[in-house]
């Protein structure tokens, strides 16, 4: 059984452990610096096991050293974006913790694959990859996959069809400037636009783009986390079972889609070694322009951070 460590046992970390347990793919260690929290949540999850039928072991620990030898480490330790914050602001809040965790991973589990769920996804995914000095394909950020599951849901609901057969890819930063590849939004292969009309599909895309904010407004004090956790668990499943599922993830590009030295959302085949390959699609002119603008803005944010030494 593969060993997955999840650092941070807030809503994101704990529910990721829960989704992984339900898929029965791996043993999970939850780590949190707050004394007893990870152990308490892990015990609660294990006690649900006999009823839910999972055979995986979930443990909790306060010691980061327990991640030693993990096959996959998921970083879920960060604070949420507050209303009005730019990604550079969130970066300044979360980067010190994430950098320190990346150094721990380098020391304790140098061979592990790393999944980042902490915002801002793309900038921190790059920070982790650079801190580890690891092969870029071993570090993946949950970004497009989260939005992809949202547009898939919205399309299935609008059409009154099962979501299982709905596809949809997103490229670009995990940010409102992300680019939905309309032609990939399909139901059993049939373009959603032919089933819904262009205008309705546009509305659904905008709904998916702002879904995080919508949930934040609805839930008031808590931001969205179930969909992020489901996305992280889907990555774990693709890794552990080496499925080579085509999933949109944030990964450092070196020329793909015209991007160099930045992590950004692209469609990738995910398997036991992390990103098995980036699928480079020929983008239409409008998508190309939107992607280039979004990537340029991400580059500016990155350069600002470097310049201010955050």
């Amino acid at each position, binding site marked *: 059984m593969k060993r997955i460590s999840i650092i941070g046992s807030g809503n994101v970390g704990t529910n990721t452990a829960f989704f992984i347990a339900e898929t029965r793919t791996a043993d999970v260690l939850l780590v949190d610096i707050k004394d007893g929290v990870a152990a308490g949540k892990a015990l609660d999850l294990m006690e649900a096991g006999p009823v839910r039928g999972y055979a995986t072991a979930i443990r909790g620990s306060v010691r980061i050293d327990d991640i030693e030898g993990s096959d996959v480490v998921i970083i879920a330790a960060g604070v949420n974006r507050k209303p009005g914050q730019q990604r550079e602001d969130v970066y300044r809040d979360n980067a010190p913790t994430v950098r320190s965790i990346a150094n721990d991973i380098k020391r304790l589990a140098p061979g592990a694959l790393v999944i980042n769920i902490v915002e801002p996804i793309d900038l921190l995914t790059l920070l982790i990859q650079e801190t580890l000095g690891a092969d870029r394909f071993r570090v993946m950020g949950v970004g497009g996959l989260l939005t992809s599951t949202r547009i898939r849901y919205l399309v299935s609901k609008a*059409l009154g069809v*099962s979501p*299982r057969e709905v596809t*949809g*890819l997103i490229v670009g930063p995990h940010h409102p400037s992300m680019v939905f590849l309309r*032609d990939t939004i399909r139901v*059993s292969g049939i373009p959603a636009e032919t089933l819904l009309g262009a205008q309705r599909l546009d509305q659904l895309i905008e709904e998916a783009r702002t879904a995080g904010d919508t949930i934040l407004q609805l839930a008031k004090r808590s931001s969205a986390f179930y969909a992020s956790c489901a996305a992280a668990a889907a990555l774990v499943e693709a890794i552990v079972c080496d499925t080579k599922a085509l*999933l949109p993830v944030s990964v450092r590009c070196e020329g793909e889609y015209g991007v160099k030295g930045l992590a950004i959302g692209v*469609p990738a085949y995910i398997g036991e070694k992390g990103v098995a390959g980036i699928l480079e*699609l020929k983008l239409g002119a409008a998508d190309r322009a939107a992607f280039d603008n979004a990537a340029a803005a991400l580059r500016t944010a990155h350069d600002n951070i470097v310049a201010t030494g955050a």
Partner: protein
Amino acid sequence: MSKNKVSIIGAGNVGATATYYIAEKVIADLVMVDVVGGMTQAKAVDFLHAGPLRGYDVSISIVGTDDFAQIADSNVVVITAGMPRKPGMDRMDLLKVNAGIVKQAARAIVEHAPNAVVVVVSNPLDIMCHVALRSTGFALRRVVGMAGILDSTRFRYFVAEKLGCALSSVHAMVLGGHGDQMVPLPRLTTVGGVPITELMDAATIARLVDRTRKGGAEIVGLLKTGSAYYAPAASVADMVESIITDRKHLAPCAAYVRGEYGIDDLFIGVPVILGRNGVERIIELGLSDDEKALLQASAGAVRQGVEELNTFFKPT
């Protein structure tokens, strides 16, 4: 919530394996009916013995019988009964013998499960759908044939195998009759929504399309004395699940068209939404001229079969 019930008529390899796949979903009580009563009863008891290990022990019942009355009040009845296709045997050779078998099953459904949705699996598939529809007199949407899901699951497997990617990322669309003239649509066959026409060259796609068309024959050729049943049974279970749980799965199935796709009064493989009422909706796609021609040719082959059926068949 009243319990759902699914009956499977014909407990050969397809019927029994479909029963097993449906049992594992724990969504309905199951009845297998076959003229060979002892064998059917044995298979049901054998399944029940596996239940404690597989997790469906006391939550559903599985009955094997030769008594058609046991299908009473089923929500879904699957007709798999029929002679299997032998190597070199054309689907049309099976017409006469299987029309009689399906008619008998259909009459039993009218008598004992008059509100059921009927899923037809017996071959030649599209023609047996006509037999079931005429012999039950049910509303059009309550008779549906299993073909396109099987053809597309094979196409999906071939694409995933070729690209080395996950089966779950691949979706496929195959229209037309369930025969050599089926119409796989590569532009609607995708990996994560990306059409395979952007991922493979035309020659490779043509090879996979050809292999899909001959998918049933490939298995027959290997087995020598039998035909495929795991993929067909999995396709049946998927359809039954969609109907019982009202999942609204959009998938290609043999449905009765009245003008859709320019085809009148014929069972043919088209994309449908499967739900509690059977065929909830037929989805009409815009097709290219080439695709239209292929679909018309396929419809022509089905129509020819229906005309052959008309030479001898009486529904009651």
